């Protein structure tokens, strides 16, 4: 078993990486964020519908990001 101090360091590192990823996401171009929102909607909609909440996933045509 790892000593507590090592574990704490590892967990602090994981949280720091998570924060860095969120800051990176915040800097994405807005159309890229909209694509992410639609992906989130598609993921979450079945769960919400199962709970009885009516939600509508956006049906928008978006140009693909560069490289796709």
């Amino acid at each position: 078993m790892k000593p507590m101090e090592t574990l704490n360091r590892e967990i602090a590192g994981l949280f720091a990486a998570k924060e860095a990823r969120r800051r990176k996401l915040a800097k994405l171009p807005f159309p890229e964020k909209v694509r992410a929102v639609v992906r989130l909607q598609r993921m979450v909609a079945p769960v919400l519908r199962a709970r009885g909440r009516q939600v509508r996933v956006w049906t928008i045509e978006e140009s693909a990001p560069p490289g796709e």
Partner: protein
Amino acid sequence: MEKTLQVLNDLVRAGVVSRYAIGGAMGAMFYIEPVLTFDLDVFVVLPQTHGGLLTLEPLYEALRARGYREEDECVNIEGVPVQFLPAYNALLEEALAEAREMRYEATPTCVLRPEHLLAIALQTGRDKDRERVRLLREQARLDQKYLKGVLSRHRLDDK
């Protein structure tokens, strides 16, 4: 979503609304990480009617004439449920007047400043608004002096 914004711009050109700006989660997303939302909040300044009454009905009528239908509290415009909210208090009037011109791909649009989005979230005060305040404070580039002015003018500096 670009087509949705083009419709909104067309409503301004036609004089149906005097001005609009994106707010809510999508507005915040111009400055923060993507967050889950199912509608597009659009704040509008409506032209005054003869009786001085502010009503969304002419806006809904103009959208119906363009083939867009109401779905609950939203209007589905090109696949995006748009919720229109008139500027109903001094903070929103100021936020709309000082909204930023931005572009979504090739289409110009108007978005509330992050300082106003933060102030509106403080004023509204639901759990999701408090989370938005936190994200804006952490991730948006806020003009602290400007923010202080907004919060003080609208008596939100103790929140």
